[in-house]
C-alpha cells in the first residue's frame, strides 16, 4: 500500500489512462452553481408553491386557464417563472448528469444518457420560454373568444 500525498503537497500533473487533464474549471464552476442556484431556487419554488397552492381559495383546484392568464398578465410573474424554469432545468439536468456519471458504468451508455438529457433539457427550456412569452390570455378563433378565457377579456 502506498502512502497518500500530504493534502498541502503541490499538485503533480499525471497523464495517461484514467487521468483526464482538463484546461478549465468546469466542474468547480458547476459545484458553485449548484449551491448558488439552489439557494435562489428555494425562494423561487416556495413562492411558486404558495402563490399557486396556498393563496388561491381552492388551492390546486383554483388553477385553470383564467388563473394562469391572471398571473402572466404581470411581467413580474412572467420573469419569476422564466428564471424558475431556467435555473431549475440547469440545476436538475446537471444533477442528473452527476447520477449518470456515478451509476452508468459503460462510457457509451453515459454518452447516450447525457445526449438524452441534453435533448430533453433543450426541448423543455425552449418550449417553456416560448410559452411564457407567446402566451395569449384572450385567445380568439374567427373573431370569437374561446371558452375558458378569463373575464377581463370581455370588458
Amino acid at each position, binding site marked *: 500500500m502506498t502512502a497518500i500525498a500530504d493534502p498541502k503537497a503541490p499538485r503533480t500533473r499525471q497523464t495517461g489512462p484514467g487521468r483526464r487533464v482538463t484546461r478549465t474549471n468546469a466542474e468547480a464552476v458547476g459545484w458553485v452553481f449548484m449551491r448558488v442556484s439552489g439557494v435562489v431556487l*428555494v425562494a423561487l*419554488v416556495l413562492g411558486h408553491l404558495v402563490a399557486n397552492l*396556498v393563496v388561491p381559495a381552492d388551492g*390546486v383546484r383554483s388553477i385553470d386557464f*383564467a388563473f394562469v392568464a391572471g398571473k402572466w398578465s404581470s411581467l413580474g410573474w412572467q420573469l419569476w417563472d422564466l428564471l424558475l424554469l431556467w435555473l431549475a432545468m440547469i440545476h436538475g439536468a446537471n*444533477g442528473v448528469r452527476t447520477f449518470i456519471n456515478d451509476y452508468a458504468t459503460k462510457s457509451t451508455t453515459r454518452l447516450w444518457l447525457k445526449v438524452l438529457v441534453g435533448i*430533453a433539457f433543450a426541448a423543455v427550456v425552449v*418550449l417553456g420560454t416560448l*410559452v411564457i412569452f407567446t402566451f395569449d390570455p384572450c385567445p380568439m378563433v374567427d373573431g370569437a373568444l*374561446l371558452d375558458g378565457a378569463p373575464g377581463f377579456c370581455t370588458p
Partner: protein
Amino acid sequence: MWSWVLHRVTGFLIFMFLLVHVLDTAMVRVSPETYDNIMGTYHNWVMGLAEAGLVAAILVHAFNGLRIVVVDFWSKGPKYQKTLLWIGVAALVLLLVPFLVIHLSHIFGGE
C-alpha cells in the same frame, strides 16, 4: 448518508415532474379547454396526494440543500452538521404540516 440518498431520490423525482409540468403548462398555448382538461386530472384526489408527496420531496431537497450550502461555506458548518440536519427537519415539519392541512382540505373538501 441517508440524507445524501434522499437528496438524490427527491432531486430525480422533482426533475422528472418538472419535465411533465412544463409540458402540461404548455397546453395553455393549445386552448383554454385543453389546459383546463389537463388541470382537471390534477384536481383528482389521487393526483392531490401525489402532489402532497411532491411538495414534501421539494421541502426535503430544499432544506437538505441549504444544509449542504451552510456546511460547505461556513467554517463551523461541518462541526454543526448534525444540528443543522435537525434544524432542517424542524423547518420541514413546520412548513409541511400546515401545507398538508390546507392542501388536503382543498383536495378532499367541497364539491
